[in-house]
């Protein structure tokens, strides 16, 4: 009987099952890829978490040395400040002089050039969480002093972004799963109405709906599994190449293969949920209308 049921189920709807296969291929690929990007981003952010800082740029004449010292002393008193490093114009000049065009040195003396350079003060917050509080305080300071500019280091921006991203990512992922569930709902209701006649006949002959439910679950799982395996392999291949290109492997000291095999249990749960549990619930739900 199962062979007949399989034929009834597949015969005219193979194309829709192929559609499911393609859908799940991309859905799964995109899921894994976003998780990959997200976790790597968070990992890197984690590594740099304790190195965030803010740059304060102070435009001041060299003679005006005392204002800078005063300011730095004030900064040290601030609540969220852990450490302050001062880079006088000379140091800045040393750092970047090789990248300056040589004409400048023909026309100006070194001291004259240095005069144009600001003081740079690197301010480290006590912890990553106080970063934005510190930023607010400095913004206040800036509004009362027009010789000051705040410059956020790229790393700090990134870490901060990673922090903000967390809830956003979870929201996105829930929506992404809801999207998949809606697709499954649509798929099953569509297939039911497409195969409505033969379902009715089978029931009138005394057949049980459970047979149809089992066959449906079997085929959905089979097609999704094929999509899952192929798209996961593609994902691993691409992720590994990307990790090598961007040196993420070195940075986080774990390859994506390693990450994958380390998370086998999570992936198993993900597989069971998306390929067995969700479809089973939705199939059960979609056949409700045939029950009295």
């Amino acid at each position: 009987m199962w062979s007949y049921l399989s034929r009834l189920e597949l015969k005219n709807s193979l194309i829709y099952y192929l559609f499911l296969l393609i859908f799940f291929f991309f859905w799964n690929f995109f899921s894994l890829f976003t998780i990959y990007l997200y976790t790597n981003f968070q990992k890197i952010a984690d590594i740099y978490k304790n190195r965030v800082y803010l740059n304060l740029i102070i435009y001041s004449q060299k003679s005006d040395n005392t204002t800078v010292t005063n300011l730095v002393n004030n900064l040290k008193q601030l609540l969220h400040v852990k450490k302050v490093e001062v880079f006088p114009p000379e140091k800045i000049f040393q750092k970047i002089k090789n990248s300056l065009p040589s004409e400048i040195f023909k026309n100006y003396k070194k001291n004259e050039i240095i005069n144009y350079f600001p003081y740079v003060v690197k301010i480290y917050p006590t912890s990553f969480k106080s970063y934005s509080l510190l930023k607010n305080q400095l913004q206040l300071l800036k509004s009362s002093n027009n010789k000051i500019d705040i410059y956020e280091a790229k790393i700090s921006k990134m870490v901060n972004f990673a922090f903000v991203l967390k809830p956003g990512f979870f929201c996105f992922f829930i929506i992404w799963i809801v999207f998949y569930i809606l697709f499954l709902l649509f798929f099953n209701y569509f297939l039911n109405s497409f195969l409505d006649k033969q379902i009715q006949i089978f029931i009138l002959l005394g057949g049980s709906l459970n047979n149809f439910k089992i066959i449906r679950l079997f085929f959905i799982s089979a097609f999704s599994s094929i999509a899952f395996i192929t798209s996961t392999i593609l994902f691993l291949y691409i992720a590994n190449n990307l990790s090598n290109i961007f040196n993420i492997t070195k940075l986080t000291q774990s390859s994506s293969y390693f990450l994958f095999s380390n998370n086998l249990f999570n992936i198993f749960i993900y597989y069971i949920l998306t390929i067995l549990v969700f479809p089973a619930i939705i199939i059960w739900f979609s056949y409700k209308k045939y029950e009295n």
Partner: protein
Amino acid sequence: MNLFSFQNVNKIYPPYFKALININLEIKEGDFIILTGSTGAGKTTLLKLLYREEKPTSGEIFYKNISYSELKTRQFNQLRQKWGIIFQDYKLFPDLSVYENIKISLILSGKKFKNMKIFIYEYLERFLLAHKAQKKIKELSGGEQQKVGVIRALIRDPEVLIADEPTGNLDPDSIKEILQILKEFHNKGKTIILATHDPIIINQKLGKLIRLKQGELINNVELFE
């Protein structure tokens, strides 16, 4: 005890077409009921209520004194497995072969056979259809399809046979064959409910004749026996 009974059953097809009006009917085990009436009188509707493809708008139907509304889907399925239903619109699986359509019916009936294939072919032979056994339903003529629908129900040797115009498209030889089998069933004490306006069958005077007119039972039940 009544096998089936209808109590004040009304069926209104939306929005307001009254297909059956206040039907009261009792069917006993072993009854041979012939339901007749002109086209559109409501014969098919009454049978659909009986095998629960449709539900009554009001009133109740009982199987052995249990209301249909109390029977769960699963319980009703088990009943249907013991029944044979011949549908006016055949209700065959168009993509499966003649043989497969019949085999599914036999499997679902739960009967065990030593050699199902031979059994099916013998039955097909009886209706001169054995040579079409491997043909798909959609490749058959209307009459041939009707034969398959009939065989599918009869071959189960059901306890209850519900037949809706089983002879509409058939030649006299096939009708004779069907009548023969119906008589056998009747003699074995099986319950038969047959809707038809085929004079050949009605003139056989086999059982109780019940007439429907525009959705109403006409109260002159003729007893032939």
